[in-house]
Every structure is written in structure tokens, then in C-alpha cells.
């Protein structure tokens, strides 16, 4: 660090302590508490269960399913996402903005809602019920693709959009066929983005919880749902701990991979303005356009089916499902009305968003500095990685860890209403950092130096050069954090008190019980929740902040 930033460095360092403490108390402590219960059942290390847990046929089945379903989900998502990224970011046509928003929408839909959507589509009586896919692994795979398409389209599309077309043109001028151009120029340039997106999709698939729980029932489980079942149903904490550690190791490896490709992505590739690169569609774009049409249909079908079925009951059109949302006595399953749950959801989401934004801004500021000394550069990059961890670690582990570690003074928070927003903020935090940090890093450090040379102190210099570019990403990240908090299910399902449930929790409770009325209400509540998140994200999309959803 250059001498002039020392005072600022100290202040920033102190400010970092707040998010670090937050991470320590609300992430490291619960996770390690959970692991401690598993590995130190009687106060001393007991690893005898490890081979036992790993040797069970059930565990092997779960591991195998997690692996192949994630791999297949990733491959399918990439296969569908690449042509869509090409069409939406490389071609210019009317309605492109709308399609981009549409394709991104599923990513912010609450996992439980996605689960309900696919059930409404594929269950008996649904539009595609005749396929007989309900209760098989097919809906899980489809939901993976549905959910993660946005990750591929935005990560790869964002890269593709800025690629200088002249590299492709010069290859063509040298006599390369379109296929050779794609193989030798375009694909290598996109590889880092493809690898980065693929890694993240695999990560999201392999740690998916809400989707698998709602669609897989008890027949198909992933490591994440297995941890949930072991802790809540069988009280087998050791088994859960073993699986958590396994998942943790896999996640760290995947995050490191993603970080490496991201770094290589950030360095030198000729990039040009998006308007210069996009062109009008041609005849040979037809296959990609067809794939895009398929993707759009694939996104719209479950959504449409959800909306339609929420408006029907006993073979007729009705608003009964929606009317029941306001009535606390409408079903014995719930202790409060769904409208009250919406209120709870909004209130916790506001708290979680404020928390995530304040902490995320501090982290983004710190990780976007480039200290000269190797030691501090190392600390900064370690922080960068540490705050990505909650993105991949089992929300179930965190949620259950909260319950077993934050249950005694001075941190007796079991009954405190702060637990839910804290857990949701933890989930939203990496996304906030991912949205803000790249923007801050994109500011030429010489801008700050120029301001300093004109007489501005370090803080003033940072304010002058960084605040103007940060305004919109801040708004976008706020919206993103809010949408994520609204839909969070994994940790919330553990922490929400029965008399103060959030909407995803309510939806899950409704669909876990039989009865047409319960299902109808779940569908209607899903529509309401989806509308909420999509509205928030629609506003974000209007801000046109490129880095949202690209990690």
C-alpha cells in the first residue's frame, strides 16, 4: 500500500471487522457448531461414523444422484443457454430487452415456487400430465435447467456481447468456414465464461434444496435434502455432519475453479461497445433462433400453467384460491393467513436487504482495493473468497447450525425475530458483493490518483471517482438482495417461527399436505410471490446493470 492510503487503509480495515464478525458469528460459528455435534458427539473426536455413513447404500445413492443430476443439469443448461446467449446478446432485433428479462426471471423465482410450477405442469391433471413424469427425476432436471438458464445466458452473453467481432471477421477473411471460426476464434474466447457459468450451474444444482424437496419427495434426494432429512427426521447429526463436510469441500473446490476462470476472464480480451458488435439476424441464425424460441416456451410453459391452475378449481374458473389467502381459518395446515405471511416476508426481506447491503458495500469496497504489498493483497483476495462461501454451503447446515449454536447467552437468539433476516442476509451477501465489486474494480485506479494529485484526500478521491458509477449497481443489488430474501427457503424453513412464517415456508407447508384446497392455495400464493420477485427484478432490469447475475 502506498503511504498516502495508510489512514484510509486503517479505517477500511476496521470497517471490514464488522462483516468479518458477522460472517464469523452467523456463518462460521453455526456451521462449525453443526460439524462439532457430528464429529464430537461426546466431547471427543469420534470419526467411527464416517466410513459407516459413507458406506450406506442410501448415502451412495444420494451422492450418485447428486452427481449425475447436477452434471446432466449443467450439460443441458449449457446446451440450451449458449444459443440463447448468442441470440440475445449478439443479435439485434425488436423485443430483445423483453426476452432478456424473461429468460433471467426464473433465476430469481423462489425455489419453492419453481417446484410448485413444475408440479402443476406435470402432475396428473396438469397440461403435460399425460407424460407421466410426475414423481420421476425428470421434473428435477427440468427445474435445474429452468432455474439456471439465466446464469449461462447472462455470464456467457455478457462476455459475448463485448467480444470484438473483428477477430471473427479476420478469421473468415483468412478463409475459415463459419464452423472453423466458431471452433478456433469464438469458442476459445468464450471458454472462460462457459467454464465459469458451468461451474456455478453445477454448484447451484448440487446444492439445490427447495426444488428437490418439492419435486423429489422422498424418492430422489440430493446431498442437501439428505442433510435435511438426517437432521430433522432421523436426528442423525453425525451423518449430516459427514455429508456437510463433503459438500463443503466440493463447494470450496468449485468456487476456487470459478474464481480462477473469472480472473482469467477479467484480463485482456479486445472488448468493444455492445452496439457495435450486435448485428441483425441472418438466415444461418435460424437454428439458434429456434433454440431461443424453445427456451422461451420452456420458461413460459410452467409459469403459464401455474397461473392458469391457480385460477381453476373443480373444473371451473374462480378466484377462490386467491380469496382464501386472506382468511386465517381457510386451512388447518396454517396458523396464519397467507396475506400475513406475505407481510412477514416483506418485513424480513427489508431487514435482510438493509443488512446485506451495508455489509456487502463494505466488503465490496475492501475487496476492490489493490494494495501493493503482497501480504495485504493476499488478505484481500482471501476475504473475497470467504464472502463467496455462503453462496454454496448448505443453507440447511447454516439454518440448523443457528438453532444449535445460538441458543445460549450471550447469543440466545432462538426465539428472536432477527434470526430469519440474518440468515437471509447471509445468503444475499455474496450476490451483493458480486454485483458491486466488479463495478468498483472497473474504475481506473489512476482516476483516484488524479483526484489525489488535485488535492483530494483519499476518501474524497474515492467518493469523486467511485460514487457516480456505483449509484445504479447499488440500486440493482438492493433489488437483487430483496428478491433473494423474499424467496429464501433453506435456512428460513428452520428458523421461521410457526406463528411468523414467510411465504415460501407457507407454500411448502401447503403442498406437503394432501387436498385440492391446499394445493390451490399453494398455487395462488406462488403466483403472488412470483409476482413480487419478478416486479422487483423487473425494476432492476430496467436499470440495465450488466453485472447482476453474472458472477
Amino acid at each position, binding site marked *: 500500500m502506498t*503511504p*498516502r492510503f495508510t489512514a484510509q487503509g486503517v479505517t477500511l480495515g476496521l470497517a471490514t471487522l464488522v462483516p468479518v464478525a458477522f460472517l464469523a458469528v452467523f456463518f462460521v460459528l453455526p456451521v462449525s457448531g453443526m460439524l462439532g455435534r457430528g464429529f464430537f458427539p461426546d466431547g471427543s473426536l469420534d470419526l467411527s461414523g464416517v466410513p459407516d455413513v459413507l458406506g450406506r447404500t442410501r448415502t451412495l445413492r444420494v451422492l450418485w444422484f447428486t452427481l449425475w443430476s447436477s452434471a446432466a443439469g449443467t450439460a443441458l443448461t449449457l446446451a440450451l443457454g449458449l444459443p440463447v446467449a448468442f441470440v440475445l446478446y449478439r443479435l439485434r432485433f425488436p423485443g430483445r430487452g423483453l426476452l432478456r428479462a424473461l429468460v433471467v426471471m426464473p433465476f430469481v423465482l423462489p425455489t419453492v415456487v419453481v417446484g410448485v410450477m413444475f408440479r402443476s405442469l406435470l402432475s396428473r391433471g396438469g397440461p403435460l400430465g399425460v407424460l407421466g413424469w410426475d414423481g420421476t427425476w425428470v421434473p428435477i432436471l427440468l427445474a435445474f435447467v429452468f432455474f439456471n438458464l439465466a446464469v449461462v445466458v447472462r455470464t456467457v452473453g455478457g462476455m459475448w456481447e463485448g467480444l470484438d467481432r473483428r477477430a471473427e471477421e479476420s478469421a473468415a477473411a483468412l478463409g475459415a468456414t463459419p464452423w472453423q471460426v466458431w471452433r478456433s476464434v469464438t469458442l476459445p474466447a468464450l471458454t472462460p465464461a462457459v467454464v465459469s457459468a458451468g461451474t456455478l450451474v453445477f454448484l447451484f444444482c448440487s446444492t439445490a434444496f427447495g426444488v428437490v424437496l418439492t419435486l423429489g419427495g422422498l424418492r430422489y434426494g440430493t446431498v442437501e435434502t439428505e442433510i435435511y432429512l438426517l437432521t430433522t427426521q432421523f436426528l442423525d447429526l453425525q451423518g449430516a455432519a459427514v455429508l456437510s463436510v463433503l459438500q463443503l469441500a466440493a463447494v470450496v473446490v468449485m468456487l476456487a475453479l470459478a474464481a480462477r476462470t473469472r480472473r482469467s476472464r477479467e484480463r485482456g480480451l479486445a472488448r468493444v461497445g455492445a452496439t457495435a458488435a450486435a448485428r441483425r439476424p441472418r438466415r444461418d441464425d435460424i437454428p439458434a433462433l429456434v433454440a431461443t424460441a424453445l427456451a422461451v416456451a420452456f420458461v413460459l410453459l410452467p409459469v403459464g400453467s401455474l397461473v392458469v391452475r391457480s385460477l381453476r378449481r373443480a373444473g371451473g374458473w374462480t378466484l377462490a384460491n386467491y380469496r382464501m389467502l386472506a382468511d386465517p381459518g381457510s386451512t388447518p395446515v396454517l396458523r396464519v393467513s397467507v396475506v400475513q405471511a406475505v407481510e412477514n416476508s416483506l418485513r424480513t426481506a427489508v431487514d435482510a436487504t438493509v443488512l446485506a447491503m451495508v455489509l456487502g458495500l463494505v466488503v465490496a469496497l475492501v475487496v476492490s482495493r489493490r494494495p501493493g504489498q503482497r501480504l495485504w493483497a493476499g488478505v484481500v483476495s482471501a476475504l473475497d473468497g470467504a464472502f463467496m462461501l455462503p453462496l454454496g454451503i448448505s443453507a440447511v447446515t447454516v439454518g440448523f447450525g443457528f438453532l444449535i449454536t445460538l441458543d445460549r447467552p450471550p447469543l440466545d437468539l432462538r426465539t428472536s425475530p432477527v434470526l430469519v433476516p440474518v440468515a437471509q442476509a447471509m445468503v444475499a451477501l455474496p450476490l451483493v458483493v458480486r454485483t458491486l465489486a466488479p463495478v468498483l474494480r472497473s474504475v*481506473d485506479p489512476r482516476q483516484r*490518483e*488524479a483526484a489525489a494529485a*488535485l*488535492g483530494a484526500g483519499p476518501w474524497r478521491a474515492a467518493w469523486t471517482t467511485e460514487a457516480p458509477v456505483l449509484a445504479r449497481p447499488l440500486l440493482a443489488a438492493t433489488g437483487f438482495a430483496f428478491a433473494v430474501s423474499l424467496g429464501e427457503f433453506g435456512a428460513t424453513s428452520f428458523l421461521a417461527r410457526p406463528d411468523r412464517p414467510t411465504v415460501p415456508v407457507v407454500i411448502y407447508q401447503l403442498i406437503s399436505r394432501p387436498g385440492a384446497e391446499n394445493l390451490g392455495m399453494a398455487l395462488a400464493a406462488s403466483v403472488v410471490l412470483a409476482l413480487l420477485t419478478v416486479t422487483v427484478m423487473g425494476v432492476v432490469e430496467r436499470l440495465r446493470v450488466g453485472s447482476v447475475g453474472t458472477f
Partner: protein
Amino acid sequence: MLELEGVTVRFGGTTAVEDVSLRVGAGSVLAVLGPSGCGKSTLLRAVAGLERLDAGTVRWEGRDLAGVPTHERGFALMFQDGQLFAHASVAQNIDYPLRLRRAGRAERTRRVEELLELVGLPGYGDRRPATLSGGEQQRVALARSLAADPVLLLLDEPLSALDRSLRDRLAGDLREILVATGTTALLVTHDHDEAFTVADRMAVMLAGSVAQEGPSSEVWRAPATRDVAEFVGFETFLSGAPLLAFRRAAGASGDPPTGTLALRRAALRVDASGQLRGIVRRAVTVSDAVQLQVDVEGVGAMAATTQDAGIRRGDHVALRADLSLSAYVFSGNHQNNG
């Protein structure tokens, strides 16, 4: 007065600036001239307080600046690419240092207009930097730097990003503005024309160290080493037998001083009355002359020039030497003949 003494800056294992000592007197302009990668920009950043010194001192008016942060030094630094604040208008950019000093509104408005006038951009106040040409952006950057009323202006390749004709014109303007405002300045550049036009004195920096320092005309006329001579545009280097042959043919008398004779291209002109004879190996027409590569009898390959566009490869020509455009230098690191 700015005094550098033994300034050394290292990045990890590599030494970017090694033991540099320089002085810039009040009101004068010093150009640090060197090829890209010689460490000159690092030296400038060290003076600005943007790089930490590994050894040596930077003093201003006798006061050691170690530990004084950039914004308290009172120096303004103008970057090669201006680094204007893209989100602010031209007037807001120039106004920035004035606002930092909490100048009154009326004074700020007056000063911004005055500076826009000075750099030849009156009425540009409401424009955005992105709508300006490269040359205009640099003018605004200069105005912004001057608005800080710097005791010392640091210029990092201020004109290098511009095309040739614009650069020549702006270099003249820059010189006039610096003289008119009596600004003390340290300029860093790889372009010797720019250095000559703008500065009073120059320091040639090669591989991290200052190879020669002095009045511009002196460095131009009498480079100290061969490397410096090569860098400031000497093209032919003679020593040993070719040197003696050349001196004889050129009509010089007495023993030659020790060292290598360095000649500018203009020192050897095609002239029917000249005493040197040679065969043209290459003739290249540039904007205002024809550059020749001539095999001179008894001497060898030499760079020469002519105004006669009719001269072709293979022609036999007579040449006249002008020793006022030559200098004796000590061999630098290069041993091969130019």
C-alpha cells in the same frame, strides 16, 4: 525548488528507478526523456507521492516529503490520457480542485472561464469529456491541473496519445502556457521534439538511471554517451580506422579526441562540391527530405540526407560533412556500429 536525491523505486525484484538525483528550479521546466519502460513514469509517480521510495529523498523547498500524502503535496499530476472524470462536465472537472479548496462561487466561475480561455477552449464548459477529441481532453486536463494552482506541475507524457500535427501544435501551446503562468514543471516523455519544445532543461533517463542532464540545447549538441546520442537522434557512429578516414575526407586537422564520433543524419548532405564519395544503398522520401543510406568510400555505411528527390539506389554521390552536427561520445553499452 524540487530536489531528488538518490531516488530508488523497486517493484519486487526489479528496480524501476535507480539512484536518480535531479533538481528543478523555480519557474523552470525539466523534461525527463527516455524510451518506454525506462522508469520515467515511475519517477514522476514517486515525486507525486503515488509510489513509495525504496531509497533516497524527494524535497520541496528543502522540506523532505517522505510521509506527505499526494493530496497534501500541492503538486498537480496530469496523466497521459487525461483521466478526466467522465461523469462530470468540462467545467465541473476544472472546478474540482477549486471546490476542494472551498473557493467562492464567483471566483470559481471566473477561474474556470479564465482557464478555458487559456487552453483555447472557451465555451466548452458544459460539454462532457466523452464528446471531446483527444487533444481537447488533454487541454481540459491541463486546465484542471492548473486550476489546482500547483507549486509544481507533473506532466506524464501529456501529448503522446495525440497524433503528430496536433502534438506539435499543443507542445508549443503548452510551452507558452507554462511560461505565461510561470509554472515550475516536471515533464516526462519519450518524444524528444516534445521535450525540446516544452522544457528548458532535460534529463535523459535510460534503464532506470539518469544518463545525462543539462540544458536541452547542450544535450542535443553534445550527448555524453553513445546511448544518449542514439536516443536523441544521432544515427551514425564512427571509431577507429573509419573515423580517421572520415576526418581526413572531411578536412579536419589534428589528432581526433578519444571516443566515438556520433553524427546526425543532417551532418552529411549530398553536395556536388563535397569531398566524400559514396554509393547510395537506400533512398527513402519522407515529408520534407530524402533519407539516404550511403556506402562512403573508406568509411562505410552512413546516414545522409538530401533535398534531391531524383536520387536513386546505386547512384554515385558526393557528400559534404557538417561537423557542427556531430559530437564525440563515450561508448555506452552498445558496441555495434550504427
